[in-house]
């Protein structure tokens, strides 16, 4: 175990039982239905860096966020936090203090009946970091300043703030226990674009100043490019590509990653004709055989239908791990537009 790894997941999976009630199931003569929200994924985050997970809705990225902080237990596989199994780490308040989470919706994640200073002080009190009210006040003021608000804002209630300011309060709350590892689940997707830029800059500044490690969950590739050191692309509960950010954006390998990049409307290509990828994400209750992307993939062949690809280093860009038979066999036509043959 390397000690510069903050968090590692080893083949972690989380399944949900979504069967109908027993009697109905017996009457309809159907079996149990299992939703494989996360189906065996492995990644590691080095201390002080940002790993992002991207994917479309239903790909399991938020489930991973919850697994990693222990809000869900894994169905199988394990999550290691700083070399220790997460279940053990969660039992120890000193370890628990080191990880915090920032949620997507700053309107839902702050208690509307609490003053901002109580919201931010709660983790300080809960972890018993300090008992003196004067010290707590001073710390809350310092945290508010750190996220670009005024210490006087502590007197107010959440409804007195705009969305961007609320997200700053969420960040101040997350930072109040002096964490080292932050899980950010779509922290900017509820915000307007100019405010999004403020929050992303703030998160970068805090990382540089406090040496934080981030797991960043987002559906927005452009945002991910701005914040990440490494990026994992998820599809139907699995990682399909994991690479250093610059490699991933410059030479995306998996056909799904390439399709996603192709799909983003970019300001710099005004009027350009795009080739959208066809089809939709299949249901994770009944995922396709073999490679989950094969029904939409222009490069799919018989092997892709039959055999599930494993994450292996890609030809040409060995720093990329990719789960694709076409890349392995060298028939992925890098550099050409992805069109069905």
């Amino acid at each position, binding site marked *: 175990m390397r000690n510069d790894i903050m968090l590692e997941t080893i083949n972690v999976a989380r399944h949900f039982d979504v069967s109908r009630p027993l009697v109905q199931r017996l009457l309809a003569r159907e079996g149990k239905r299992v939703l494989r929200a996360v189906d065996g994924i492995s990644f590691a985050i080095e201390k002080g860096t940002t790993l992002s997970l991207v994917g*479309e*809705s239903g790909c399991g990225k938020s489930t991973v966020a919850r697994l990693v902080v222990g809000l869900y237990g894994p169905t199988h596989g394990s999550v290691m936090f700083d070399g220790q199994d997460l279940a053990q780490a969660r039992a120890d308040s000193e370890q628990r203090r080191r990880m915090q989470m920032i949620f997507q919706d700053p309107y839902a994640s702050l208690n509307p009946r609490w003053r901002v200073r109580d919201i931010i002080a709660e983790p300080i009190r809960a972890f018993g970091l300090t008992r003196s009210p004067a010290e707590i006040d001073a710390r809350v003021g310092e945290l508010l300043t750190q996220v670009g608000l005024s210490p006087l804002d502590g007197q107010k209630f959440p409804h007195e703030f*705009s*969305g*961007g*300011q609320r997200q700053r309060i969420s960040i101040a709350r997350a930072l109040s226990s002096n964490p080292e590892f932050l899980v950010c689940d779509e922290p900017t997707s509820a915000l*307007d*674009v*100019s*405010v*999004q*830029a*403020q929050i*992303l*800059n703030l998160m*970068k500044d805090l990382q540089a100043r406090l040496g934080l490690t981030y797991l960043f969950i987002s*559906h*927005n*590739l*452009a*945002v991910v*490019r*701005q914040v990440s050191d490494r990026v994992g692309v998820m599809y139907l509960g699995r990682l399909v590509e994991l690479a250093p*950010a*610059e490699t991933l*954006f410059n030479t995306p390998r998996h056909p799904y990653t390439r*399709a*996603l*990049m*192709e*799909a*983003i*409307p*970019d*300001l*710099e*290509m*005004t*009027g*350009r004709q*795009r080739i*959208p*990828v*066809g089809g*939709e*994400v299949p249901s994770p209750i009944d995922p396709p055989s073999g490679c989950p992307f094969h029904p939409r993939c222009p490069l799919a062949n018989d092997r892709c239908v039959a055999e599930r690809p494993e994450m292996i280093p890609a030809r040409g860009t060995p720093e990329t791990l990719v789960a694709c038979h076409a890349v392995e066999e060298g028939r992925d036509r890098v550099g050409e537009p992805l069109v069905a043959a």
Partner: protein
Amino acid sequence: MTAPLLEVRNLRVEFPTRRGTLVALDDVSFSIAHGEVLGVVGESGAGKSMTGAAIIGLLEPPGRIAGGQILLNGRRIDNLPYSELRKLRGREIGAIFQDPLTTLNPLYTVGQQLIETMVTHLPLNPAQARAKAIEWLELVGIPAASQRIDSYPHEFSGGMRQRVVIALALCAEPKLIVADEPTTALDVSIQAQVISLLKSLARDKGTSMMLVTHDMGVIAETADRVAVMYAGRIVEVGAVRNVVQQAAHPYSAGLMGSIPPVGRRLERLQQIDGSMPRLSAIPPGCPYNPRCPHAFDRCFVERPELMPAKDNLAACWLYAEQGVPRHA
């Protein structure tokens, strides 16, 4: 030059509240030509959806049009009685909203909804309308349309539902479509499909479109012209390329700059400090003056009208002298 299809003149929308009247739209004027796609962008609360709602006569009470005119093909539509408005909606103006699930009636099959719309507005009998409905579903890319026509909205996925909504908006062949965040609820790969569908249908049918969205990327790909809104006013209008690449108004420039580029990594994103004022606290003069890096005396006292600025029109005193930027 022919008359525009839609013309909005000095539109003012007010919300009377207990603490006084809030002005949600203030002196908004623009036009849309035949076959043109006008993008309307801005942050939440800027009034872009409100503008769309005013045009289709769907302002939520107590909101009301307090001044100005809306003309469709030269005819005033802002003061029509309800029964006239009903004939207009669907037939002349189609609407596409953000959430396809709330647009469709869950108790009727998609076929029934399409047929009802067409029978109401077009000289068709139900059997002809059904054949036409299947054609429309095929046109918007729904596989096995002749079977899916008898499905209920919940049996479709989000992307497919939005396709049904597009078919519903277009099936009475309106001249104008008001599309309010049509792709915001969709994933990127589906969004790309829906946008290219909207674009090609609008082009083939010669339909004009007012496309309201906060996603500049969508506008850059789809619109011919863009209007940028801020605090209930239009602050800049121009051809899409000009606004995206060389915005004149400091707000539009800041907005464009704060969009993270997917093509490269920036050390720091350009940000606009502060946030948009609440409707109850719009500052005098230019509403953008508290956040504007170029604001000077005049901006705090006198409200700017749209004036020539670079190749666009911008409501900004920097361009008071014949489109030449003051600080350049």
